[in-house]
């Protein structure tokens, strides 16, 4: 995973709450067996609408998505994270994330930055008033800046550390292989097995 310290890019105001992962990428787009090529399915149902924010040229190259509460609820599909990344997003800002989506983001290197509702409102207003304006999201200091706006965002310390260092989760766990083996040796024999 690439290290993530700070990102500056065009902010995209997505004035919607409860954007579940079926809306981020519908199931019919989940048939690929790779981690790339999912950008076509991103917000597929809305992309046909000319007025949809990503269809406006000012926001077309957006890399920081600003969404309402409960972004990424529902299905566990990590394809939702990949679709956002494949499209070019590096950061999603919301006032509340679905748990699994937030976890998936951290594993894949997409920064899920949680802010207060009022910050979302202020960012939406700013980005709509200044279409194509950039937002800076600094993971070192956990701050978000756009124009004169500056506020802090939340992310759990462990995910922040892993993103800053660009660390592979599996590698970290395998460094504790002895602990896993010790645990396995102590498991009761009646626990079920599939083979």
């Amino acid at each position: 995973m690439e290290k993530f310290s700070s990102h500056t890019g065009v902010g995209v105001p997505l004035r919607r709450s409860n954007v579940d992962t079926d809306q981020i990428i519908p199931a019919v787009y989940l048939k690929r067996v790779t981690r790339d090529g999912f950008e076509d399915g991103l917000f597929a149902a809305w992309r046909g609408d000319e007025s949809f924010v990503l269809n406006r040229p000012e926001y077309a190259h957006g890399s920081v998505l600003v969404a309402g509460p409960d972004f990424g609820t529902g299905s566990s599909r990590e394809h939702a994270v990949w679709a956002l990344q494949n499209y070019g997003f590096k950061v999603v800002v919301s006032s509340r994330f679905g748990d699994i989506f937030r976890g998936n983001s951290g594993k894949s290197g997409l920064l899920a930055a949680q802010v207060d509702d009022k910050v979302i409102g202020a960012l939406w207003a700013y980005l709509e008033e200044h279409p194509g304006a950039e937002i800076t999201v600094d993971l070192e200091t956990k701050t978000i800046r756009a124009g004169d706006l500056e506020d802090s965002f939340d992310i759990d310390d462990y995910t922040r550390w892993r993103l800053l260092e660009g660390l592979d989760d599996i590698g970290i766990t395998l460094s504790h292989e002895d602990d896993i083996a010790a645990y396995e040796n102590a498991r009761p024999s009646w626990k079920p097995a599939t083979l």
Partner: protein
Amino acid sequence: MGKTLAPRTLAEKVWDEHVVRSAEGEPDLLFIDLHLIHEVTSPQAFDGLRLAGRSVRRPDLTLATEDHNVPTLDWDKPIADPVSRTQVETLRKNAEEFGVRLHPLGDVEQGIVHVVGPQLGLTQPGMTIVCGDSHTSTHGAFGALAFGIGTSEVEHVLATQTLPQARPRTMAVNVSGSIPDGVTAKDLILTLIAQTGTGGGQGFVVEYRGQAIEELSMEGRMTVCNMSIEWGAKAGLIAPDQTTFDYLKDRPEAPKGTDWDAAVEHWSTLRTDDDAEFDLEIDLDASTLTPFVTWGTNPGQGVPLGANVPSPEDFVEETDQVAAEKALTYMGLEAGTPMREIKVDTVFIGSCTNGRIEDLRLAASIVEGRQVDPQTRLLVVPGSARVRLQAEDEGLDVIFKEAGAEWRGAGCSMCLGMNPDQLAPQERSASTSNRNFEGRQGKGGRTHLVSVPVAAATAIRGTLSSPADLEQI
């Protein structure tokens, strides 16, 4: 570990039993007892293993089945859609290469992953169970700590049989009283989600408890736990009891002989201690429950069947008002319309929420001797091949077919419309599944989430209905 004498909740007990490693400032490393996989969320995980030269640490704690993307017609023939076929074949190749047990299409144990685990007896109390599917919470019905994960985590579990997890908060949902006749576990959970909202359970492992929960069958408990994710909970679970043990006894993968005795002895300890404290408690009186249906585009947008479609002004918060307005437009509904007057094109009975044998028996008992409304399609999709065979053994398929329903093969089917079973744009469904999101069952499709009895009665009358609305025969 280090957790000793302090009173603990059920979730904390199961958690503590699975901590491989715990360190300050880090998530706990949890051992995973059972990893279920399917074709949609696993290919990239296996690719990751290959790229890093890693193997599957515990194929003996891993089980694969094909469910999300499989046809429910002509399942004995090659899959027509080449992209779907490639995905299913990729799972078959990966299972073979990495030595994972697979129940493919056509196998008697194939089916929706959350139906297969319990019916094999692999899902047992006190286990940690994960799957790259958010409805993994279903297995919590057995007192297991079960939750959905993403593909990166699937790869992590394949490689290490563990997951780093931050300790969640705990919540109790205390359901007092008894569920009235004609009302089901589905109505209970839909009512709860409407009260709490889709984010109300976020960050919590929820224990459902109280008289109404204890009185539920295992199937009903699975329905409740299944939809935990729909109010944002990390997992939902129910303390194991005699109902649980009776369900598990003699299942193919359940412990046998002295192992059974040892297991039951341990399972019996898996209860929340009397003086344990939850971070949050919610109370619900089951005796006030009525058939409950959704009108909007998330599972929290629901009302009693006897109510009217709400108006955006009925909501206090501005975000709820905006969401209601968007939902009404998408659903093609007018505020004030009685829910019972909403005409439905397709009824879907199935899914990991309501696709088990008890659900099919209940549905069949309602449609028996009646005819599906001529303008309505009824699709009945068993949750697993075993459920299909059992239903056919009992003659349920004949009852459905004689009523004019379509009887299909096992899979996720129209719950998520990944296979050809989809709604057309603006087509309206009453569905026993778990999500009424925009486009979930097909682009532009309009979904009302309902219980099994409401689904069956709706198929007969053609408008949202309960069995009480049907003419007596």
